[in-house]
Structure formats: C-alpha cells, structure tokens
C-alpha cells in the first residue's frame, strides 16, 4: 500500500513538471498575436491599422516617455508571413525589408528593426523593454505571464 501511495505521488510530481508540448499560450490556441511589455497600458484595444502605423514607423511612441521598440519575427515564421500579408500588404519578408529601406530613405525610420530568432527571444526582449512590441504565434509563447498578449483582428 505504501509503495502504491509513493508511486502515485511521484506520478503526480512528474505530471506537474512543465513540458513544452503541453504548454499553452495565454489564449489557449495557436494564432498570431501581438505582445507588449506587461507595464504597457497604452496598447490595449489595438487595431490592425494601429499596428500597421506602428510597424511602418508612423507612430513612434506609446506616450511622451515611452518610445516604441519594434521587433520583427523570424523571417520564415508564421508570424512574419501574417505581418507581411495583413499589415504590410506584401508577399514576403523581403518586401518588408524593402519597405524599411524606403522608409529610411524617406526619413520615416532610422534603421531596419531587429529580427528575433525565436518567439522565446521575442518574449524576453519585450519583457525587458517597456516600449517593446513584437508579433509572435501564441502557441509558442513559453511564459505568457512575462508579457501582455493582445489579439488584433485581421492579423
């Protein structure tokens, strides 16, 4: 009996270990979402048009003291494809690069935003920067409590 109790207790402990396979995003699904710093209260209710203004460099700050830091998703990721199709209205990541080169030329932005290698890196950078914003796939977010997740219609 004692052996059975201990075995079952160990089973419970094993089941409690975090496993990436079973990890769920804050939304419980796998969709492309926007993530911002948890302290950012200005991004709530963001629309696709507002997201486009942010990523196209037309909106450069959340408020007077909080400039926006953009991060681009990995080039081949689902998040990048969604950003290209639904925000920039282009076909691929190269077209987004071309947009930023033209935007630099037109003095709209100063540089091409950095590209993260993974959703995990995006979460870490957004968690560490009050003005940061990134686009990721919700199912890949390892620790949703570190950031604020925003669902944007049309993304």
């Amino acid at each position, binding site marked *: *009996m*004692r052996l059975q*109790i201990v075995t*079952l*207790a160990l*089973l*419970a*402990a*094993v*089941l*409690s*270990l*975090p*496993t990436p396979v*079973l*990890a769920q995003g804050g939304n419980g699904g796998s969709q492309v979402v926007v993530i911002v710093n948890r302290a950012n209260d200005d991004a709530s209710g963001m629309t696709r*048009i*507002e997201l*486009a*203004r942010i990523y196209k460099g*037309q*909106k*450069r*700050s*959340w*408020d*007077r003291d*909080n*400039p926006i*830091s953009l991060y681009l998703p990995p080039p081949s990721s689902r998040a990048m494809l969604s950003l290209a199709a639904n925000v920039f*209205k*282009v076909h691929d990541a*190269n*077209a987004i*690069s*071309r947009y930023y*080169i*033209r935007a*630099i*030329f*037109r*003095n709209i*932005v*100063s*540089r*091409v935003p*950095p590209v993260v290698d993974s959703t995990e890196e995006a979460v*870490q*950078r957004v*968690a*560490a*920067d*009050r*003005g*940061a914003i990134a686009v990721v796939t919700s199912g890949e977010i390892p*620790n949703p*409590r*570190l950031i604020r997740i925003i669902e944007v219609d049309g993304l």
Partner: protein
Amino acid sequence: MPRLGITAGVAFALIAAPALGAEDAGPKRDLALALEDIARMQADYQSRIETLEAQVSQLRDVEAGPDHGSHSGGFRAPRLSIRGFAHVGYNATESSTRAAPIEESSNHFDTEGFSLILSSDISERVSFFSETEFDLTGSGSTSITIARMKLNVDLFDGLRMTLGKGHTAIGYWNKNYHHGAWVDPTISRPLIYNYEGSGGVLPLHYYGVELMGDFSSGLGNVSYVATLANGNGPTTTSTPVQDRNDSKLLALLMTWEPREDAGLGFNVVLDRIPGDPAIGPFRDHTIEELIYGGHLFYRVEPFDFVTEFQHITHEDGGTGASYRHYGAFAHLGYTLGKFTPYYRFDLLGIESGDPFFVGSGAVLARLSDTVQHSVGVRWDIKPFVAIKTEYRYRRDRFQRDSTAAVQAAFTF
C-alpha cells in the same frame, strides 16, 4: 502546467483517502503532507525559472550592447545606420527640330555616382538623417553634395519637427522620391519635378524648419507638412543656404488617405524672390511667388497610379506683370510578379517672358510648353536590385527628343 500536477495530486489524495481508510490515518496524513511539500516545491521551481529567464534576458542585452534598444535607463550611444543608393545606365537620344530632321544624337553610359543615407537615433526622441551625393561630373571630376540633412525631434506622438535641409513640401512626388534611383518607380522624374539644376521650375529644396505629423479618425488618416525656410535666391539654381531677403518661404502640404496607400491632397507655397540687378535690369525688383497644387494617388498592388498638378504665379514687383505656368503628370503602373510596366504623361505650360526664368540661365530662358510621353518597365530582378528600361518622347516649341534608356538601380 504546474496546476495540472497539483490537481492530479489532490485528486489522487481524494480518491486514495477512502482506500486508506480510517484504519491507516498515519500514512494518510503523511501523504497529505507529502503532497503539500510537492506543491511548494513546484511553486518554488516555477519562480526560480522565471527569475533565471529574466536574468538571461538582461545578460543578453548587456552582451549585445546598447544597439538592442533596452530602455532600462542605462547607457545608450547613438546608433548609426548607413545605406547607399546607386545606379548605372545607358542613354541614347536623338533630337530634331523643324529645320533639321536629326540635328543631334548622343549615346553614353551613365553613372552619376552614389548617395549615402546616414541615419542615427541620438536619443529616444531625437534622430539625425542625411543624404550625401558623391557625383561623377561630365568633366570627370567628383563633387560632393549634401542633398538633405535633418535633425528630427519627435515632440510628441503624431508631431515631428525637423531642422536642416530637405525637400520642400511641394506635392506627393517631391516628398517621396529624392536622389536614390532604386526607390523611384521610373528612370526619369516628372518634368514638373526636375531638379533646379536640370531645368526645374519649382523650389524643390529648402533650408529651414518643418513640422510634420498625422492623425487618424474613422474617415482615414490625415498627414501634414508645414515648412518655414529661407526664401529662394534670385535664380532657380541659387541655393538658399543664406536668405537674401527678410521674407521666408512658407509651404503647406496636406494629404488625406481614406484607406492605406490611396488618397488625395493639396499644397501651397508662398515666397518673395529677391531682385538682383547683376543679372540684368529686368531683375531689379522682387518677384512674388505663389505655387499651389494637388495630388491624387492609388498605390494598392497591383496598381500604381499617381497624378499631380502644380500652378505657379510670378508677379513682377517692378512692372506688375504676372506670369502663370503649370505642370502636370499622370503615372500608371501595373505590377505583374517582378515586373511593373508603366506609362507616364507629362505636361508643362510655360508663359514666356517670366523674368525669374529668363534670368536663371539658358535652359530656363528657353523653356516652353512641353509634352512628354514615357513608357517603360521596372524589373525587380533581386530584392534590392532593379533593372529599368524606358523610352521617352518629348516635344516642345523648339525641338523633339526621343530617348531610350536602361538603368540598373540598387541599394546597398
């Protein structure tokens, strides 16, 4: 996820407790205590994992340096970005007049040099921008021109102030296309937007301060640019680095975009052009300049349509005579994969005798009503390399030109 384990453990405890029964209260209590210990350990591990992840993120930021934009309040240095634009090409032109069918023909390989865009975030709200051209002149020498140089200050969201040299807020094309051929959809610029040194009639460059911004509503986005700058010099090619008179150039450009990449707008420019007796007695007095125009664009793939017009009035302060000129163009492109064929119609209407143009050199003095047709194809052969071919037919009062051009334009 830890909740699943805790829930499983509690559920097990609830299920196992009756099995243990009153006959074995000691082990039952031990089990409950063990489950509590496991729950505490899980919470502790989770907290430690989160702490470690945050520390790793901070270490990565320190390792990567200030370029990765941490706004933690620590040390940040300006972040300089350098981009280049260049083009090479070939042009063949045949000119004819009424007197001679083919008076002049020329063909040559063409590279005007390259331009460098330097941009840098000096701080969260201040940035620097410059466009410097390194030109190869016809005599084989090299010239360096600062085409644009601006200090940008983001006053607050939706309002930016820039100080320095830039492109005047005249029309859509002049604010979007500058000296980088890779950005331009065509080889040649619209006639109305030819640069001052190429027979242009508009003050396309300014030295001064600009306020620009935009605001959105349910009806779309409205953007504006207001300029206060040194006034023009006595000729079209006089660079207004210093103002020759006390009056300043005022310009306003507004655009309404009811949807992304489609909209319309207008512009107004006011200036007082100083007189210069050294040019000739006809230029003794100031000239009041009024420019107004409008633009319409629809740039939603696969269509690329832009049309504009500008109207110029010069009022001679000595004679009181007014001279009115106009210019317009319509550009239509259609994207098919990597190819974008296009057509553009250009129109210039010039009233002869304008002392400002007469006193600005032979090219402007000879300027007359002009019609030009341009047809071409842009091939984006690589993401940052474009091959353009263009044929232009231009006719004015004195001569006709046919030009065939090929250009490879790229950014680096």
